[in-house]
């Protein structure tokens, strides 16, 4: 009971600090708005995003087509709206994959130490030797280009970051008195890891997850831009940019809006991530 009030007040405190941060709030509002658009996409999108109309190809902005139409006469506004859901689903799944696997591995390495930790840190160091996009490309070269491929690629390349952070926190927490006390009253290792140490990892993990979302959106749409991710005709923003760049001279609008939306989404996650870091612990090094 007492524990509950403690958690609530901690949350309220964080929220109070976060809500004073205008930039973070802007980020939160943009994210909420894009999620809302993605959920309501079937109802808000004025056209079928895949429906081609050869009488209205590469049209400019108009009342009928707010963002114009693409090379096949598809409504860009509708494609952007539907694309929001695709980008968010891919990015959330990838970060979730990285988070779950990364936290488990980092927790085991940090808690048990010795040989397990040696193996964990070795593998992490190797994976960190690859710039993020390249690790993702290596994985796509195995899985082949597809939605699952992107999620796996971007998710797996997020693991080392989560491992490193969790391991670091666990290493410093496990020496503290409360863990010693938990051991003394006979708690088993699993309980100590999940109920004692994990709650102390939540603050840095929240920040890392949010900032990681920004990176993941960039890498995932980058893969699709290279043609290695989501394939046309799916209206993924990066893939749309790739399709549109052949028409840069005649129809620059094709390349304008998908990039703008990627930028806003990434910016929003960066703003929120920075805000959360300041609200949770300004001394946090991330």
């Amino acid at each position, binding site marked *: 009971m007492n524990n509950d009030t403690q958690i609530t007040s901690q949350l309220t405190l964080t929220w109070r600090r976060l809500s004073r941060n205008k930039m973070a709030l802007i980020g939160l509002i943009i994210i909420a708005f894009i999620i809302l658009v993605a959920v309501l996409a079937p109802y808000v999108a004025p056209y079928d995003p895949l429906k081609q109309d050869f009488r209205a190809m590469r049209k400019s902005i108009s009342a009928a087509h707010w963002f114009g139409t693409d090379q096949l006469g598809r409504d860009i506004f509708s494609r952007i709206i539907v694309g929001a859901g695709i980008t968010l689903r891919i990015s959330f799944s990838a970060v979730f994959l990285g988070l779950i696997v990364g936290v488990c591995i980092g927790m085991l390495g940090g808690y048990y130490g010795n040989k397990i930790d040696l193996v964990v840190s070795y593998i992490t*160091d190797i994976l960190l030797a690859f710039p993020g996009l390249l690790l993702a*490309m290596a994985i796509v070269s195995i899985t082949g280009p597809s939605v699952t491929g992107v999620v796996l690629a971007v998710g797996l390349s997020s693991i080392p970051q989560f491992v490193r952070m969790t391991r670091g926190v666990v290493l410093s927490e496990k020496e503290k008195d409360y863990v010693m006390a938990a051991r003394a009253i006979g708690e088993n290792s699993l309980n100590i890891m999940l109920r004692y140490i994990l709650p102390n990892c939540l603050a840095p993990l929240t920040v890392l997850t949010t900032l990681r979302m920004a990176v993941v959106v960039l890498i995932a749409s980058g893969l699709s831009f290279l*043609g290695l991710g989501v394939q046309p005709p799916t209206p993924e923003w990066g893939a749309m940019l790739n399709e549109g*760049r052949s028409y840069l001279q005649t129809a620059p609008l094709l390349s304008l809006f998908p*990039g703008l939306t990627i*930028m806003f989404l990434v910016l929003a996650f960066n703003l929120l991530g920075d805000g959360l870091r300041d609200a949770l612990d300004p001394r946090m090094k991330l």
Partner: protein
Amino acid sequence: MINYLIRRLLMLVPILIGITMVSFLILQLVPGDPALIILGVEAEAEDLEDLRHKLGLDKDIVTQYVIFFKNTVSGDLGESITTQNDVVAEIWPRFKNTVRLTVASTLLATIVGLLVGCIAAMKQNTATDYIAMVVVLIGISTPSFWSGLLLILLFSVHFEWFPPGGSMGFISLILPMVTLAAPGAAVIARMARSSMLEVFRQDYIRTARAKGQKESKVVFKHALRNALIPTVTVVGLQFGYLMGGAVLVETVFTWPGLGRLLVSAIFNRDYPVVQAGIMFFAVSFVFVNLIVDILYGYLDPRISYE
């Protein structure tokens, strides 16, 4: 110092071995028979057998890795499946182009980043500072493959100042360089600003100001040198990230670098080129980090090598 260098180089060995393992695993993890995927279902059984033998797939995994490792160390990375050329000969000129682009971008990013960061720190909490930090955030958040397209639209299509792509000397380097440098400059500016602010709080800065030193001298002689130390690490890291980001920028500007080669190799399922290309990127990333570590110790005399 020499001892430290040798120790650091030795510490690199397991990482380099790890890189060869990851690269080796790429071909092993391809679902199904790689030979069949590369040659297609209509391939003759004989050709398949031939390719399997060439790729070493007819041996057990440990033997395969040992052979792969030995060949890699002796500089033999196999031959490309699409062009039949030696992979290293194929990759090397492309790699040089990528390094050229990345070095130019890192230099630009460092100069712009330091300048913006210092100005923002000197004018902390003024409109200049806020605007600079918003621009920085936008710089970090803008996908380079989009800003590149916008630059082409503005400077190649509209003004016709620069070519939209290709590699015709310095003039065609400018747009990709700016595109690639932008996010790096943003990160460096952020780091430079916060380390400058940190340094401004130190006693020796107060002392310098108290003795009537000119503000420009305080900033450039006393503060900047100390603020540079953490910034160097970021610059080094950025070099690595920009190298990864070069894949996208090269594609936008049809720059004949390793990134573009890697993308087409993935499309063509030319696994020897994919494996080698990824190794080239990772190994250079690791060595840049090593150089940064050494430079860091050189800049900060408080770090001892013992």
